[in-house]
């Protein structure tokens, strides 16, 4: 027996996409439009962000941050919380490269329009370059080493306000400095009268626009507030539905719903597979204090990789190193002397890389590494090693045989770092930029939605998250998601105006 509720607009998900749509549509509440946001994860109080690694990973991430692809060779990290993955990103704020948007070739989607919209959110979220005194050694060495090695090193604009440099961004900022949708767009939407219900999972969407929603109980001893609604099943009627549950969540939801969805639903999944590399310096450096991700090197267009500064927590660092035993332990015990670089491969849509659902409706991600993606990781590893050595590191731990690269190896990286050491199942590859599954395009024959996120053949259903990307973005995606979500909100406003007229 389920309880029935009725709304004009229901937004599924509260991350970069859902939070943006909620804020942009919020003024409609004044005109009597009823808007509901359904978020699967809980709402956390400020003091619950403790920065403790396993505790926060369990609380914030799906499967503790280790959602496995079908063949078990990569883990995917995505959050389940009020604010979605904006709670756990580092706040790095880049706008989509023109060459990428051109290559997407989506009729009606112009780079200039997307840039203009993304800029609006960059301003709203206080995006700026951090001042020099806040930059730690880990980042400074990347700049020095990168420039010495001949790379163009760029500074990340970040969306923080009052950053104290905890370095704990990926575990949820303990100081509420990061300006995610949980801090900016959702509170604004709620103040304007949008209703947000947490711990509310949408199981499916019926063709008559009824959503089957399950509100779960807060388990004893767990973090987060109880749901705003009583636990149980609900039938929520909507005139317009906006799916913004992330690439995996949205694709899986539409796949398990009895809707006449386009054939390409779930296809075109990309994720920027990433490796964490570490290098040991002869002296201690500041690495676990300060904003962790302040600089990057973009070789996406030429060599299919992007390098970013990073620092991770003990367990994530340990599992990211290749091998085991004494060598592994020695590197871990050198933590105060470690410099870290994240290598992201710019993967592209490949046949078979897709999101599906199990018989019970759970998401399954099929992903195989193409030779081009492996090549991006190999080239990125060599580049990172060059930067480490140029920055003064005495050894680099990398996927190689043996995994320790000494200074003497610096001149023969092509020989030491080869694709043969990048075998799936032997490396800790993870990804947090999950894209595709509901790609934009011209018609149902080549895509799931149009350039405004409207699902082909279902004019009342829109998508507003990274699942819209028809191919990988090759940079950190959140500002692009917000720009696209802004377009979705505009489309919804147009639809409502037509209905009223």
């Amino acid at each position, binding site marked *: 027996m389920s309880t029935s509720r009725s709304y004009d607009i229901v937004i599924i998900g509260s991350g970069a996409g859902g939070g943006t749509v909620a804020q942009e549509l919020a003024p409609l509440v004044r005109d009597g439009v009823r808007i509901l946001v359904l978020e699967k994860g809980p709402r956390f109080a400020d003091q619950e962000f403790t920065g403790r690694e396993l505790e926060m990973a369990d609380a914030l991430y799906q499967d503790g941050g280790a959602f496995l692809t079908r063949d078990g060779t990569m883990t995917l990290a995505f959050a389940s919380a009020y604010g979605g993955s904006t709670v756990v990103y580092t706040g790095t704020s880049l706008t989509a490269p023109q060459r990428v948007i051109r290559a997407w070739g989506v009729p009606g989607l112009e780079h200039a329009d997307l840039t203009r919209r993304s800029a609006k959110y960059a301003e709203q979220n206080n995006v700026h370059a951090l001042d020099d005194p806040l930059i730690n050694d880990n980042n400074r060495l990347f700049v020095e080493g990168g420039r010495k090695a001949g790379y163009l090193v760029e500074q990340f604009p970040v969306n923080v306000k009052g950053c104290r440099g905890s370095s704990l961004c990926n575990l949820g900022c303990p100081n509420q400095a990061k300006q995610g949708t949980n801090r900016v767009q959702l509170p604004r939407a709620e103040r304007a009268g949008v209703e947000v219900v947490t711990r509310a999972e949408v199981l499916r969407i019926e063709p008559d626009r009824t959503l089957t929603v399950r509100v779960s109980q807060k388990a004893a001893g767990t973090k987060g507030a109880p749901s705003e609604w009583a636990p149980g099943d609900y039938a929520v009627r909507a005139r317009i539905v906006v799916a913004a549950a992330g690439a995996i969540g949205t694709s899986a939801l539409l796949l398990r719903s009895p809707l006449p969805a386009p054939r390409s639903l779930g296809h075109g999944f990309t994720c920027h597979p990433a490796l964490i590399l570490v290098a040991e310096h002869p002296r201690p450096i500041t690495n676990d204090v300060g904003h962790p991700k302040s600089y990057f090197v973009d070789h996406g267009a030429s060599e299919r990789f992007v390098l970013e500064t990073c620092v991770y927590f003990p367990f994530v660092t340990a599992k990211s190193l290749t091998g085991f035993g004494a060598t592994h332990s020695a590197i871990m015990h050198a*933590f105060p002397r470690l410099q870290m670089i994240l290598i992201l491969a710019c993967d592209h849509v490949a046949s078979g890389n897709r999101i599906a659902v199990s018989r019970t409706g759970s998401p399954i991600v099929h992903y195989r590494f193409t030779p081009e993606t492996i090549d991006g990781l190999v080239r990125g590893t060599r580049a990172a090693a060059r930067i480490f050595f140029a920055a003064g590191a005495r050894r680099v731990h990398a996927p190689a045989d043996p995994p320790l690269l000494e200074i003497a190896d610096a001149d023969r990286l092509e020989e030491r770092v080869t694709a043969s050491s990048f075998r799936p199942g032997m490396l800790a590859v993870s990804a947090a930029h999950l894209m595709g599954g509901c790609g934009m395009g011209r018609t149902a024959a080549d895509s799931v939605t149009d350039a405004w996120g409207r699902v082909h053949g279902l004019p009342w259903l829109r998508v507003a998250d990274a699942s819209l990307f028809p191919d990988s973005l090759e940079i950190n995606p959140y500002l692009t998601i917000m720009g696209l979500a802004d377009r979705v909100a505009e489309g919804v406003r147009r639809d409502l105006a037509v209905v009223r007229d």
Partner: protein
Amino acid sequence: MTLSSPVFRAVATCVVPEASRFDAAQWDEMAAIVARAIAARPRAMQRQLALFLILLEWFPLVRYGRRLSRLDPARRTKFLDRLQRSPLLLLRRGFWGVRTLVLMGYYGRPAAAAEIGYRADARGWEARR
């Protein structure tokens, strides 16, 4: 097959040699972390893990005439190294999974953070001045 079984400890001490100095309470702490992680995983995965641990224990019998937990540390390490380089994805993946659990159990302990010199603090720069 449990997390306090000889085979799990044999793998753990190979993956993180410092674990061989653990007392009973430290083993319990590590096992509790790993047990919590496993309990959150689907039943099928839990069964696969239990099965893989059994295979890990008995596989070396073919080559070395002894179970994994009875092998000396050098042979144990050699055997596990072969597994992680196996041409079979299933074996590489299985070992990768067990290795990840061991590392979670070891480095997920607050004491391990202090031991390796990891000092991140919510107060950030202020805590270092």
